[in-house]
């Protein structure tokens, strides 16, 4: 980034326009209570308050490609404690989504994959199919890893089967909404509206 771009509001403006609850980013006063309250905080390369500062410093690439937001467990501690009332959880989800959408989010992050699987899974039938989701999750890092994970998870899987909290019937069809088509139409439309609002960059 050139000296003339530093601390310019371009990226902040972009975040305000395109990211869920993005307009709140400017209100952060760098107290760090969010960073201190995050259960997976120690795994964050850049904690929320720092991400807000980076946005204001115009560090577009570093922010959107950061793995940090993907460690949000949605525990809402940050929201509960933020003295300025920033909806931090949502901003993190929003930044994650935006980075993924622009294709700059880190590719190999398990949570991104899982999150995508989850979404696709629900879009398909309108309801989540836990077994398929689970299995696809195990195999998302390739077949061998999948077997490993599956074996590792075998005991749990067994337990779930035995307590009827997971059933092989799910493999054949399983649950879903009757009007999955209608749901998909709704989601398609919603997506269109959102895309139309997105301010193109660069």
């Amino acid at each position: 980034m050139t000296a003339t771009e530093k601390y310019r509001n371009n990226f902040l403006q972009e975040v305000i326009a395109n990211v869920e609850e993005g307009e709140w980013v400017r209100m952060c006063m760098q107290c760090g209570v969010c960073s201190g309250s995050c259960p997976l905080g120690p795994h964050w390369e850049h904690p929320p308050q720092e991400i807000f500062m980076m946005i204001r410093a115009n560090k577009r690439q570093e922010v959107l490609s950061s793995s940090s937001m993907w460690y949000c467990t949605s525990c809402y501690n940050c929201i509960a404690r933020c003295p300025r009332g920033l909806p931090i959880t949502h901003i993190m989800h929003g930044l994650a989504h935006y980075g993924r959408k622009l294709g700059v989010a880190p590719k190999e992050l398990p949570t991104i994959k899982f999150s995508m699987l989850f979404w696709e899974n629900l879009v398909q039938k309108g309801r989540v199919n836990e077994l398929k989701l689970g299995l696809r999750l195990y195999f998302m890092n390739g077949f061998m890893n999948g077997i490993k994970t599956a074996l590792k998870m075998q005991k749990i899987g067994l337990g779930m089967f035995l307590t009827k909290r997971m059933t092989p019937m799910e493999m054949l069809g399983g649950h879903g909404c009757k009007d999955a088509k209608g749901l998909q139409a709704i989601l398609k439309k919603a997506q269109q509206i959102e895309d139309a609002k997105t301010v193109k960059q660069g």
Partner: protein
Amino acid sequence: MADKKFGAYICKGCGIGERLNANQLASVATKEGKMAFAKQHDFLCNSEGVAMIQADINAGEVNHLMIAGCSKRAKMEAFNFDNVVMSRANLREGVIWVRPDTDEAKETTQEMANDYIRMACAEVRYMNLPSSSNEQNLTGHLLVVGGGITGLTSALEAAKAGYNVTLVEKSDKLGGVSGQLYKRIPNRAPFKDPQENSVVDLIAKVEANSKIKVYLSSIVAKTEGAPGRFKVEIAAESGPTTTETIGAIVQASGFKPYDANQLPHLGFGKSPDVVDQLGLELLAREANGGAIKRPSDGKEVKSVVFVQCAGQRGNKEGYLPYCSGHCCLTSVKQAMYFKDANPNIDTAIIYTDLRTPGAGGEDFYRSGQDKGVTFTKGKVSEVSPNGSNLAVKFKDLILDEEVNLETDLVVLATGMVPNSGVDIEAIPIAIEEVEGEPKKPVSDVIEFPVKGSVLNLDYRQGADMPQLVHGFTDSHFICFPYETRRTGIYAAGPVRRPMDGFQAMEDATGATLKAIQVIENSALGRAAHPRSGDLSYPKFRKEGCTQCKRCTVECPFGAINEDEKRYPFFNEARCRRCGICMGACPVRVISFENYSVETVGQAIKAVDIPDEFSEKPRILVLACENDAYPAIDMAGMNHIEYSAFVRIIPVRCLGSVNTIWITDALNSGYDGVMLMGCRKDGDYQCHFVKGSELAHIRTSKIDDTLKGLNLETERVQTLEVAITDIQRIPQLINEMAATIEKIGMSPFKF
């Protein structure tokens, strides 16, 4: 006043009657104390007891009262009689509450009480009712020096209260620095946007007000006299001078902006696009709500960086060590100038601590963020021209990295430098007589106006008010912000302490109240704070005076001038009645009618001194009535015991202690003397500023006297105590008693 009629009233309430032999006290009062009568009462402070005393006064039975009972700090309202003088013997907090209720203690406790009766009787015998100096006259007229927002406010507020005002402004127009602002920090909810600059209306109101007379392009060339009767010479640049009689003065001489040329590393002077906050106000006024253009090439500013604490909050050479308080809010306001005109302009404020205190401050900060101003915690090391732009080098303390950024314009948040006039402590006025020449009064020696002076006071101690720290003429007292060391002259606004315009207006209003107050009180001969209402003032015997100048030099309030014959000239209304001059006088010619070398000296002598072999030493304590004495009182209230051999006398200020009292005490057989005053260093707590310090200096010389008398130096101690030393003072007393026991009784007992 008619001839003195002495009467004693002895209260037997609160256990005094049970613990002490009241009849004995009464006979001490009449026989030794020379009281015409001594009435005993079971409950003197109740309405019936007070009525009895008042009846005696009305009947002309008594006009000099000795009341024995509780401390003089207790029941003040009850024992508050007009046109009489009164002394009080402290038998409750001072005797029975600090002594054990045992048979062995009975004798010494009674002796203690008897002595306090003797002392109070002696004191009242030598007291007189303060008589008027006939110096007072009422001049309900204020002088306001300075026509900035502070002076304008002071003038208007005084006029609103019905007083006439003369306002002197050295420049050719009113408004001062505030007048140059485009807009102001808001002082009303919701504290969201910059506020219209109301100084214009203020000026209009002042000019329209018939009670206010304005002198432009003029200075105060000479100020002599005292509250209620200042004579002030106002000199116009154009030549003519006018003299006005003034009651009190508000010094609103304001500040000048710090000279940013001292900050070349921040680019000032190197590029016209580096401005200070006042410079930006100018650009904003030119833009008048439109696009702000940068000085160098008139290009519309698209990005601006504010550098906080520029040349401030540092011990670097040439830096101001303090924080100017308003600059954070001012930068938020100025960033809004840009954002309100065009939200796409990039505005960054680089700060180390964002100081926007209070309700309004925090709201305004939040509003700044809401408008998209970027706040960055960082330290700027360099600003330098880079082509047509400016390069700002700083460390971002949050992102923990060195940053180089380019911007169109840089605003340096520099500080305030007070216009306090001359530093009288730095340049003491030399008035030592030249060989052969006749002695001259100060005013003949000094050329008025004194270069750089604001007030040009014709005062023995210098032409302006003493400064406190960093050149500000602030009060040192947290609970008394307007206590300047020149009675009747009150500093207000940034000359007193760094502050923004609205604080300055508040400050001006407060200072104006104090000015009005001093006018009202000096007209009645009443003292100003802290001895508010005291009618006594120094009387001095010219015949005895050796013109040693100690009183004129040592008065903390510059109250005493020297007349044409070099004799001290006491200005009643400038005097704070502390008695420091009385303590200073080596020939003891200065006294107050109700507080004198005699009233205390005789009380000291009145104490009954047992002989050398009685094993009953006597220790004299002279205690500051403002801090030490209340502490001793509270020791009593908490029933903390101390030696029965101590005799305590409250004094107005330790500085009023004349060393003769100490030598007399030693000569008359006291075994020890303790002087208890307030803290005296830079954080002094002496209500008369220098009293405690001076007392320490004076008594430091007492050692020679002691050696001369062949006495151990331990026998005299000068101590710093605080009003909270409720446990420590009894300890100190008991330690002194132990010391006496160790070194033995004084040989000077007759």
